[in-house]
């Protein structure tokens, strides 16, 4: 799927693809030639070595010419213990008054386990319930066989990871993987999309079987009332939702989904249109994808290569013989969309009925979604599994009882993937997932990030007892203690960069600088135009401006290397640990800078736990919080 063969334009890292059309000017390389950027002195990037050693991702599409498997469509029903039937059947045993009450009270029984390659896992089960059995046989034979064949050709490590994840999610409980590594993204995607296709296929088979039964019953005795145990569907057809930040992510998932539907047996309809709309337009070169490893940080390349439009939604319909992209929402099985794309659709149609019957929710790249607009994610998730406003011609005699009772959210399976954890994503996991089958969270112990040697890192704690006051306390501490201290010092009050993780804090600090501080400062935010950015960098580098305010989102989207920094103030620890390393390496871009010339201050409170943990490592962060 690589579109790197078009060498006319260069894509940097913008949200809007249209801005990177061939004509638009890119100043990036003109100002700071690439070879200079590589001139590092003592600084070493923690993940640059990783990036160097990472094997080039080669898409291996294995086409196993197999017998048309249609004959086995009415495959012998495994038995009554099928994971799909026991969880998503008409009367799931897990769904009881007490289990729902326990979920609503948020009474979960927690236990720790080690789950093979997934590592240490916290399992949460509603109080008084039993964890469902996990079995590999949950995957249909027809899907499993080709998958096993392909697995045989990939590294063992990945195969084990996939099997461990599949056995974990086969019991249809929620899974939260907040620290996946970039190498694992692809195998995880493939395993989850196998699970999703398996879900859709099982649902379709059940429906077809019941259709047949109804037809038989009608033929045998037209006057008799039809069988009543045919409740096998939701209000609307879509049962899988995949929430993604960018079009390029949708392309990745498309690749993963279609890898389970090999070509001879299944046709992909509208494939070329999908590739055209979700890839880069012809004649564009993906600068990130084609750059030498090490020029850009790994995470930046992974996140921003390809089409980075964040407004899209597409329906995927699976039938016995085809995968149809761009099918109408009410006639599709899988919806792939960005939160923004869905929100706009919901607001335009004034209904989110197509989200009423989602049974498997996948949210990928949470770390990018938090950098976009978290409100949109919450908006979309709040519309899941609600009673629809219109019947959309649903057959009400076929709707599963727990949909009628409004209990669908207690059975929905959610799978959340992220490379790092934020309070938002944790709260999503803790409060909005109500699956009575339980949920699991993968734990990770972090090691400290690497920083240039010799820099004195001054981590300053401020007291805060209530998360609600956290922003105010931080602001007060910054303006009354930290900033005056910095301004007193002749050395520290110039060439100083202030890095601010939250956008809200950023605006507040910017306004404060405007009004009170009386120092000259430049601003780099995600809303800055290219012109503003170059002006700001220039002014800061030449010393015209003493301070520069940088928002985390700016760094996330643009990844500029800021020159002329001698003093760094972190208003809070950055969400992305590598940013800490990168910013601390910035001073060494300039000639003749010694580590002793650089100062670094980090402001933190106990509510910065996740971010602190990633920078100082799990143990280090514990000590820091305890010491305070």
């Amino acid at each position, binding site marked *: 799927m690589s579109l790197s063969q078009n060498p006319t334009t260069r894509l940097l890292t913008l949200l809007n693809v249209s801005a990177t059309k061939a004509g638009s000017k890119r100043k990036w390389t003109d100002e700071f030639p690439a070879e200079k950027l590589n001139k590092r002195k003592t600084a070493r990037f923690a993940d640059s070595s990783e990036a160097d050693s990472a094997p080039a991702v080669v898409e291996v599409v294995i086409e196993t010419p197999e017998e048309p498997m249609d004959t086995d469509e009415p495959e012998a029903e495994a038995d009554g213990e099928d994971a799909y039937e026991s969880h998503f059947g008409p009367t799931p045993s897990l769904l009881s008054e007490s289990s729902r009450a326990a979920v609503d009270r948020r009474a979960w029984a927690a236990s720790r386990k080690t789950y093979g390659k997934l590592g240490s896992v916290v399992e949460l089960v509603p109080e008084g319930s039993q964890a469902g059995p996990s079995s590999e046989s949950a995957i249909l034979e027809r899907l499993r066989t080709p998958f096993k064949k392909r697995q045989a050709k990939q590294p063992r490590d990945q195969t084990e990871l996939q099997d461990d994840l599949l056995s974990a999610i086969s019991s249809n409980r929620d899974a939260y993987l907040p620290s996946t590594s970039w190498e694992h993204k692809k195998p995880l995607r493939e395993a989850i999309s196998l699970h999703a296709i398996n879900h859709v296929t099982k649902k379709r088979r059940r429906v077809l079987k019941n259709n047949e039964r109804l037809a038989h019953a009608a033929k045998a005795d037209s006057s008799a*009332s039809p069988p009543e145990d045919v409740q096998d569907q939701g209000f609307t057809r879509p049962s899988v939702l995949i929430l993604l930040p960018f079009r390029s992510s949708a392309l990745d998932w498309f690749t993963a989904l279609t890898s389970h539907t090999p070509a001879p047996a299944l046709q992909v309809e509208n494939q070329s249109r999908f590739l055209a709309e979700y890839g880069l337009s012809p004649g564009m070169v993906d600068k990130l994808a084609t750059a030498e490893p090490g020029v850009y940080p790994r995470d930046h390349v992974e996140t921003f290569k390809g089409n980075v439009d964040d407004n899209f939604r597409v329906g995927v319909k699976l039938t016995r013989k085809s995968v149809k992209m761009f099918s109408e929402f009410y006639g599709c099985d899988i919806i792939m969309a960005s939160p923004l794309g869905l929100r706009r659709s919901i607001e335009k149609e004034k209904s989110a009925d197509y989200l009423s019957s989602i049974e498997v929710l996948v949210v990928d790249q949470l770390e990018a979604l938090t950098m976009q607009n978290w409100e949109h994610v919450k908006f979309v998730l709040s519309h899941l599994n609600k*009673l629809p406003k219109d*019947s959309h011609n649903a057959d009400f005699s076929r709707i599963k009882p727990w949909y009628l*009772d409004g209990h669908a959210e207690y059975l929905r399976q959610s799978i959340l993937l992220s490379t790092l954890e934020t309070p938002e994503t944790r709260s999503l996991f803790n409060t909005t997932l109500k699956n009575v089958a339980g949920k699991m969270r993968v734990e990770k112990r972090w090691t400290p990030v690497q920083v240039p040697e010799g820099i004195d890192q001054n981590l300053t704690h401020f007291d805060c007892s209530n998360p609600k006051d956290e922003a105010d306390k931080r602001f007060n501490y910054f303006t009354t203690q930290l900033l005056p201290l910095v301004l007193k010092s002749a050395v520290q009050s110039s060439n100083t960069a202030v890095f601010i993780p939250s956008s809200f804090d950023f605006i507040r600090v910017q306004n404060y600088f405007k009004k009170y501080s009386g120092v000259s400062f430049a601003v780099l935010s995600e809303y800055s135009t290219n012109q503003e950015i170059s002006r700001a960098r220039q002014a800061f580098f030449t010393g015209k401006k003493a301070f520069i305010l940088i928002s985390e989102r700016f760094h996330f989207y643009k990844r500029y290397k800021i020159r002329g920094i001698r003093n760094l103030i972190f208003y809070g620890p950055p969400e992305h640990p590598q940013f800490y390393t990168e910013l601390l390496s910035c001073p060494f871009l300039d000639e003749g800078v010694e580590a002793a010339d650089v100062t670094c201050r980090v402001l933190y409170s106990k509510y910065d736990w996740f971010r602190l943990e990633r920078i100082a490592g799990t143990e280090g962060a514990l000590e820091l919080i305890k010491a305070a």
Partner: protein
Amino acid sequence: MSSPPSFKSLGLIDPLLEALEQVNFTTPTEIQVEALPHALEGRDIIGVASTGSGKTAAFALPILQKLWEDPKGLFACVMAPTRELAFQISQQFESLGSSMGVRSAVIVGGVETIAQSVALAKRPHIVVATPGRLLWHLENTKGFSLKGIKFLVLDEADRLLDMDFGPVIDRILKLVPTERTTYLFSATMTSKVAKLQRASLSNPVKVEVSTKYQTVSTLLQYYLFMPLQDKDTYLVSLANSLAQNSMIIFTRTVHDAGRICIILRTLGLPAVPLHGQLSQSQRLGALGKFKSGSRKVLVATDIASRGLDIPSVDVVINFDIPTHSKDYIHRVGRTARAGRAGKSITLVTQYDVELVQRIEQTIGKQMELWPTDPEEIALLKERVNEAGRVAAVELKEQNANAKGGGNGRKHRRDDGRSREDERDRDDDVVEAGIPTQRKKFKSR
């Protein structure tokens, strides 16, 4: 008859007897005594009994008993002409069937359809519906049918079988099985055989407790004669003198109901309106306030004239004389229910004399003149006229607001629903029995 029959001797099963005890139904009423044995035999029944004589229980009990023998979803369907009546019937079913765990669903217009579809998909035992919305669901809700029902009940059957509801009922009847038990109940029954055939009864038993259309003997009926222009004043003086009682004032039009309500409120008598141009929640709210006793005066159109069982009503005032004598019987049947005493007072102007005479002929009784004090009327007149002007202004504003919101009176009625709902209309849109176009209200 040797000893007074009890529910037990009528052959009811224990769970029902328990429930009856709980709701304090001790002895069966006449219609129940007459109808239950036939019903338990499985016959079709045409039941006619005067207002407030326990008709609802008379058909609910046999249905519940049969349901106990063969419990299944969508067992019986009950149709009623107004939404309020449908809610009331459903409540009665649930309270009588509480020990059996009976589930019933109310399917009426003016409420979101999707929630009703969901309720129907849960296969309630009893469906209580107004015809228009029921037909809508039969035709539009996929997977819902009444093919399995065993009982069909038309409450206020004469009303349901007349010309307004007729075509809808015909279509519904085509969608229910012919092998079923059918009950028709009303206080007044049409004698036209053609109409009865619509309901396609098979070998029905006619159970009549009173042969002539009757009002109950505990009801004292009065009239009040006055010139048309002083009608408002007389009403206020009447309402004032009866202020301790809970009363229903019936008007012919929605406009009058709103206007009188405002006049009474302006003069310090807390009144609530109930008519078809209120939303369903407003209607239920108004009825709730009146039932609970927090408001003593209900100003209603004919929407409230049939079937509603509000035990505490002491007085019924007919502000406008009903054009049909049947409607008169239903209206005054809101009071003096189940053996209690009650009064009805009909305001008669110089133009209404003939109508009153016709009513008197139908009920076979003479009304008495309600005494008034002409001095008091003269004193009140000025204040009432003032209140009348206030009311006119307020109504005008309300209308302007409704239209300003892009929500004219016409539009409010459909709520964006199909025209089918329109047939689930209320009795105040068209005068009962006169299926002409809506008359423009003429002010005097």
